[in-house]
């Protein structure tokens, strides 16, 4: 009896808190289907289900184009970070050389430099390279990542040393060992890191704001800012439709990758 009561109480608390946490997302969904009139009345549910707001959102902004840009940029950064960090992590784990610890410490110390403190010179660099409004300006500065190297290093370390020695005796090259053994063995960490970098890049705001000044490579996040300024106080349904379009890809990614992120990021945090 006591156990049952406890269970009911637990579910009650879970349901209420889940509702509170999820409410803003739900609210955005609900409003995106509403007409302006319904909104002003303060209804929570739309009487009729209509997609006009979505149509308008895509008409007023090149939203499809922005989505495409965000996909290209997030994918590029994801691949770039995976390649660059896994190479560095490989060197830190499998290649013994003098000063390895010192160099690793240097890597870790980069985490103490807030990216925002470097943005002014970075902006000037991008300008001088003529990379304003280009994909490379939005992606390449983010390819190197200390956190990613750190996370992968933890996992690479769990590969038995004997495997590496055996591979060397058998004359398997380092690069082959890296690609054929290390990468498949650490698939989970790579997926975790990949999902994480895709998410963070998709959500990036300040840098795209600085280095884009036309629509060519602008991302959806900046699109939201534009929508917000255009539609202020008028057509909130359209704005929310834009929000829903922007958050769906990352929500889906999160739902799929949640297990990986939960395990992988916590591991990276610890050891």
């Amino acid at each position, binding site marked *: 009896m006591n156990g049952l009561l406890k269970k009911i109480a637990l579910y009650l608390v879970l349901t209420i808190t889940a509702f509170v*946490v999820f409410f803003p997302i739900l609210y955005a969904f609900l409003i995106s289907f509403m007409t302006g009139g319904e909104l002003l009345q303060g209804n929570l549910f739309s009487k009729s289900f209509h997609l006009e707001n979505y149509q308008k959102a895509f008409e007023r902004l090149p939203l499809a184009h922005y989505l495409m840009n965000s996909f290209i940029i997030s994918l590029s950064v994801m691949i770039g970070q995976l390649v660059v960090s896994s190479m*560095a992590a490989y060197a830190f784990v499998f290649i013994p050389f003098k000063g390895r610890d010192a160099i690793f410490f240097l890597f870790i110390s980069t985490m103490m430099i807030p990216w925002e403190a470097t943005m002014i010179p970075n902006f000037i660099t991008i300008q001088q390279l003529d990379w304003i409004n280009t994909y490379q300006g939005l992606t390449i500065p983010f390819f190197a990542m200390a956190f990613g190297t750190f996370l992968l290093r933890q996992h690479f370390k769990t590969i038995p040393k004997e495997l590496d020695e055996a591979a060397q005796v058998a004359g398997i090259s380092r690069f082959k060992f890296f690609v054929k053994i290390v990468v498949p063995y650490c698939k989970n960490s790579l997926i975790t890191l990949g999902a994480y970098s895709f998410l963070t890049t998709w959500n990036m705001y300040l840098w795209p704001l600085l280095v884009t000044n036309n629509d060519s490579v602008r991302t959806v996040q900046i699109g939201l800012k534009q929508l917000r300024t255009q539609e202020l106080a008028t057509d909130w349904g359209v704005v929310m439709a834009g929000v829903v379009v922007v958050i769906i890809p990352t929500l889906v990614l999160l739902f799929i990758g949640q297990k990986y992120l939960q395990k992988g990021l916590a591991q990276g945090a610890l050891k």
Partner: protein
Amino acid sequence: MKDSLEMEQPILTDQPLSWWKKSLNIRTACLYLLPSFFLFAVFLFYPMAKTVYLSFFLTDQQGIANVFVGLENYQYLLQSESFRKSIKATILFVLYTVPTGVMIALALALLTNEKVKGIGIFRTMYASTMGVSVAASSVVWLFLFHPSIGFFNKIITAIGGESVSWLLDPSWALVSISVTTIWMNIGFSFLILLGGLQNIDEQLYESAKIDGASYLYKLRRITIPMLSPTLFFVLTVSLINAFQTFGQVDILTQGGPSESTNVIVYSIYREAFVNYQFGTASAQSVFLFLCILIVTIMQFKFGEKKVHYQ
């Protein structure tokens, strides 16, 4: 990528290893570390040094250093009313968001660490805010805070209260932004803390169960100590994130009203890219860097001792 072992020719002589052969490892390592190093050098170390350099100069609109002014930019900042407000806003923001955010995430993680049916759905819902970008969250909360048709004021007026101008009132604006931020960060902190909880050895609880320990006792004696490294990590990340806040301020208040939400990164952005004062903006950036440096060092110095590692 060229392969170093394959390139190497077998050495058949009995002579001691040549320098070339001995340095094989370091050369290979360099090859693997080169991309990271190059990128860090160009986009992190160089600009950090350049920021410090620029902070001693007056610059033109392109950000070219013109006149050396020594510490004048710093002196100017320390005397500037606006910068003082910015520091105050940043500190208050950190105090409002970090402890509350971590506590809420911890509570949710503890709740969903129970093994009951359907728990996966709840976990997904709590984690969901991680999938919502800063810009998207800010726009949704902008509407929730809307003075006339926003959800909060609708509720307040429905129960007979007086509507609050959340984002337009200097005494409410920072609180509103903090609430938004706490919500945005729940997902990430929750996910990490849940992962940490699941890494705790089941057997510790089994033996406590035999002893008939209460939930609170187990929480205090097992869960929290075992979770402390994760908590420590989440705390550090939240603190650093709080110092780096930008998007929600840009969308919700643009630093206003009367600079009450002009947190440091927003202030740097305004100074550099709206007012084109790269010198003073760089001085502020140096300040930001020092803040984060101090936070990180302090956390590692004091936090590390109290943290229990498995």
